[in-house]
């Protein structure tokens, strides 16, 4: 089903994930998680992404740190999207998201709430915010070597 989001819906999604994040905390047991730290030289964002991968499936994704609204909500939504997905599926979601951010054709169906970030290109200074968590996931998946 194609996703249609109006401005009001996009705003509520972003604010909801910023104010009530589902995945913004440090895991109790770090040992099974891949940790990727990401910060930015030109803004305040400074986050760590924790990804647990078992048998080729993303079993958990969490993050923590200092983050603006766009960074925090985009990372939280990303965690929502990839938990329970295989590495291959997660890669497809990542690819689609980056295509959306950089104004290329993308699969809006698999991005679900992440569609709220489709206007990021209009505020170029925020591309970094909207992709910092997603870049961390990209790295985590490649660290896992699968």
């Amino acid at each position, binding site marked *: 089903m194609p996703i249609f989001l109006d401005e009001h819906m996009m705003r509520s999604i972003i604010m909801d994930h910023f104010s009530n994040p589902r995945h913004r905390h440090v895991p109790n047991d770090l040992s099974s998680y891949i940790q990727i730290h990401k910060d930015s030289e030109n*803004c305040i964002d400074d986050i760590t992404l924790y990804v647990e991968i078992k048998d080729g499936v993303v079993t958990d994704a969490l993050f923590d740190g200092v983050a603006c609204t*766009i960074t925090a909500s985009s990372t939280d939504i990303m965690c929502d999207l990839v938990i329970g997905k295989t590495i291959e599926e997660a890669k497809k979601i990542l690819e689609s998201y980056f295509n959306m951010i950089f104004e290329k054709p993308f699969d809006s169906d698999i991005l679900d709430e992440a569609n709220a970030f489709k206007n990021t290109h*209009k*505020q170029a200074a925020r591309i970094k915010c909207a992709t910092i968590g997603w870049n961390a996931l990209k790295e985590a998946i490649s660290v896992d070597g699968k």
Partner: protein
Amino acid sequence: MKKMDIDEIRANFPMLNEDKRMQGKPLIFLDNASTTFKPYQVFEAVKDYYFNKTSNSHRGDYDLCFEMDKYVYGVREKVAKFIHAKMPEEIVFTAGASMSINIIAYGLLKYVEEGDEIIIDEAEHASNVLPWFKIAEIKKAKIVYIPLTEEGRITANNLRKVITNKTKIVSVAHVTNVLGFKSEVKEMARICHEFNAYFVLDGAQSVPHMKTDVQDIDCDFLAFSAHKMYGPTGLGVIYGKKALLDKMEPLLSGGGMNAKFLACGDVRYLSAPERLEAGTLNLEGIFGLGAAIDFINDYGIDNIEKRESELRAYAIEKLKKVKNIIIYNEHAEGAIITINIKDVFAQDLSTYLNSKGIATRSGQHCAKILIDHLHSLATVRISLAFYNTFEEIDALCEALDGSEGFLDAYFS
């Protein structure tokens, strides 16, 4: 001296031309603590170097080079006069204020022993923190912080609470870069010298905005940069008392700073300022800085300070009426106002202001340690220059009033 005619002042700056837009709106530049715009006079001076005077300094046997040395000395004189140094030889050209503080820190390394103390404070910019961390690490010395007052000020009284006979260096900002408070530098210098400690001043946020008299303050060193005072990037200055500069260990070695260099490894360094200026100088930058100082002098630094404090007072009064605003430094002397809007993350606020064509700076402003004092992760800094207008402040306040819709920019 020129009259403070705002239209005439603004006409000097190509970046203030009406054709300059941001997000399709007239550009309002309120990030002057980060860098200032440059007047035509500065470009003309840089152009003059390349078009008419290109040569190197203290290198050649021909007229162009002789003239270059004279010109560079002339700018040294201009800088010395501007900050009321005793002589032009007390002015060292560097690559920027950060480089200046690094050169000072390394130059003082030999005076620091294990267990000694270097005093800074929590409101310093990273460039006046990290070089001292390095020195402390090399020498196993201790970093001690002057406690800030409740308001966030650096006071002589609080320096006295922490200084000891082990203190070798005290380094503080004349005006701090996040809160814009003016430190009690004259009294602090006196205390330092009572304890035989060197007193280093970071003048990056003060020299462009107020009269600086290094002899009156009696600081041992002062660091600042050209690009925050209408001059070009890539050029900084060290002021140091001549006798101290002459004894400093140069951080950089190379051409132009050694008097005798024999194959057996016997090297003798020149005296200051050349001793600390290894390599080719940023000559175009020096031409530009000379013009920038002339430009400031045309209006008078006291008049510039007066206009900026009028702008600031006006801004404070108007900002206070903005809904949900937190102002962190209402009573600061510098041209800096630091704010937040309740429940809006600083970076989101700056992005929102960007969508209205207004340039401000969000973040920790490199004064990362200060966060513990401000109890805020991040703030938005509004920093003024004398070319800003009352109308620009009105536009800022109007924009801030609508900032609960800070995500609008993201969707429109």
